[in-house]
């Protein structure tokens, strides 16, 4: 009991020290003393730090195999350095560039359509007057987010099969005369990837916008109403400007993730017929690394993608901060 009392009395505030820096020896000594006094609380943090060193920092160090020729018999340190050789091979790899084109194509479509829809949807939900219908719409629209891509992939395959929902609808509307499985049609894959992603995530994307909109001062709207502004005008002049910073933040995060197209989605929807249009960088890394065992090459691709992503993040942040009167969002 007395031991506890000693500890607790000293765990409190940092001892007040007179100004100016002390000699290094004394500082180390103080550090050690403080540390001993705080052992109990430090013992809560240290496991987390050890975890991060093992599971986050060792893999970051492991990125060096991008500059090595790593084979299964090597260890991380024994593999010979090859400099930028892996990157040189990437540059002349046709399949890699196919994957880049698909990634960019799908990502830009997702950005162009998928970014705007949650904003429109959020405004529409916000403008609803009836509380019960509002809640219903929200509940339904969040639901697909909780389905895994595997489940959704299975559903899509069912919907698009020749006897499935999609063909049935088109047939009954007279838009097609012969059922056809569009998942086997490479030319339509980008749209399947984009629209299924929007179907899954659009509702979920409204949550943050709705949270921001609920904080807009209602007197703005009242004032606008007295001035005779139409509902669309109110949305344009009050709602949207109030969401500017959160929209920019979301845009930055989306842009920085442009090259990281959804791996789960691709793995479940890709088949031998649509592979040319479905392969994205992530699935290419998976295939080269995990299926073909070319670890160094796959890591080099992954590293290149991360570097480009960081550049995109910084650039997007710069551009949006210019648009937002030089206020950086990040």
């Amino acid at each position, binding site marked *: 009991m007395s031991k*506890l009392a000693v500890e*607790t009395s000293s*765990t*409190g*505030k*940092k001892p007040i020290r007179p100004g100016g820096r002390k000699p290094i020896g004394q500082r180390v000594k103080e550090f050690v003393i403080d540390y001993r006094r*705080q052992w*109990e*609380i430090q013992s*809560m*943090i240290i*496991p*987390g*730090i050890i*975890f*991060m060193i093992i*599971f*986050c*920092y060792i*893999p970051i*160090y*492991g*990125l060096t*195999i991008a500059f090595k020729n790593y084979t299964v018999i090597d260890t991380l340190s024994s593999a010979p350095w090859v400099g930028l050789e892996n990157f040189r091979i990437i540059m002349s790899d046709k399949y890699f560039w196919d994957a880049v084109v698909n990634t960019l194509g799908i990502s830009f479509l997702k950005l162009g359509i998928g970014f705007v829809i949650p904003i429109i949807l959020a405004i*529409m*939900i916000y*403008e*609803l*007057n009836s509380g019960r219908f509002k809640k*219903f*719409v929200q*509940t*339904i*629209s969040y*639901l697909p987010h*909780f389905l*895994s*891509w*595997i*489940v959704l992939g299975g*559903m899509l*395959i*069912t*919907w698009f099969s020749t*006897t499935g*929902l999609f063909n*049935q609808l088109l047939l009954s509307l007279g838009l097609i005369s012969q059922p056809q499985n569009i998942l*086997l049609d490479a030319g339509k894959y980008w749209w399947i990837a984009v629209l299924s992603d929007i179907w899954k995530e659009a*509702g979920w994307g409204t*949550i943050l916008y709705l*949270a921001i909109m609920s904080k807009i001062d209602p007197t703005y709207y009242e004032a606008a109403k007295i001035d005779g502004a*139409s509902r669309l005008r109110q949305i344009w002049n009050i709602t949207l400007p109030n969401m500017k910073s959160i929209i920019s933040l979301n845009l930055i995060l989306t842009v920085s993730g442009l090259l990281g197209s959804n*791996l789960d989605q691709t*793995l479940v929807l890709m088949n*031998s017929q649509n592979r040319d249009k479905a392969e994205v960088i992530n699935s290419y890394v998976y295939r080269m690394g*995990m299926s073909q065992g070319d670890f160094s090459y796959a*890591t080099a691709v*992954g590293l290149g993608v*991360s570097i480009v992503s*960081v550049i995109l993040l910084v650039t997007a942040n710069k551009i949006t901060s210019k648009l937002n009167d030089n206020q950086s969002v990040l």
Partner: protein
Amino acid sequence: MNGKVAKEDLDSRIFDTLNIILLVICTVIIVVPLWNVIISSFSSGKALAEGGFIFWSPEFSLENYRAVFNDSSIWQAFFISVSKTTIGVVTHVFFCAMVGYGLSKKYIRGRKLYVAMGVITMFFSGGMIPTYLLIKSLGLLNSFWVYIIPALFSFYDVVILMNFFRNVPDSLEESAKIDGAGDWHIFLKIFIPLSMPAMATIALFNGVGQWNDFMTTKLYITDQSLYPLQMMLYEIIVQSQTQSMQNIGGSAVIETTTKGVQLATIVITTLPIVLIYPILQRYFISGMMLGAVKE
């Protein structure tokens, strides 16, 4: 003046009506396909082979579910899914709360360094291959613990909990210390019970993530007895895809059977999520707010 007001009213009413119509269309687009999957899973093989129904199956039957439940591997997979989710959630939340509690104290030595290390992990990672090599060298390949240990910690969750713990009044801690309680005691007996809402939010998000995760299995597990439901479903999907492509004119019977099994597995895999969804919904909005406020 009166005319102007009336016109605005009309404009507003048109806007409302259009808005409601569009949102009804949106919900229909979400609900109908989901309903179609459920209805199809309860259809007989014959009805599935013929297709042609949207809202109601011409021939109801439980044969798909019977086929799935007769397969012992589905029970095994269900057991793996449930145990990895429960163990994973409990350990993840406890671990993150412990670290978050420690870091919420401003006076601890080395705090700046710890936080900086954590923030770096939010933006940089080694990526798929170096992580795979690490997991391999730790001997976690084909082990149940690969579902639990690498998923123990997320600095994002630590930050949320850290902010939450900081809002607990200092006086509670001080009075406990006067009574002779140590940090662990204070954490377990005072802070954990007080932080239930924040921890529930993180638990629910993490739980959905664990339940839905299939990449971990795909990357690190080849032993079929460790497959969770998601991986089982993936295997069935891939199998049926190859079959339907080879199946030009061939055995339509096999195709519809796998289709039925696939549909029933989809429903079984999703059911737990749908069941906890009402609880989930109550929490996740406040959880999102919690995450948004700190930005």
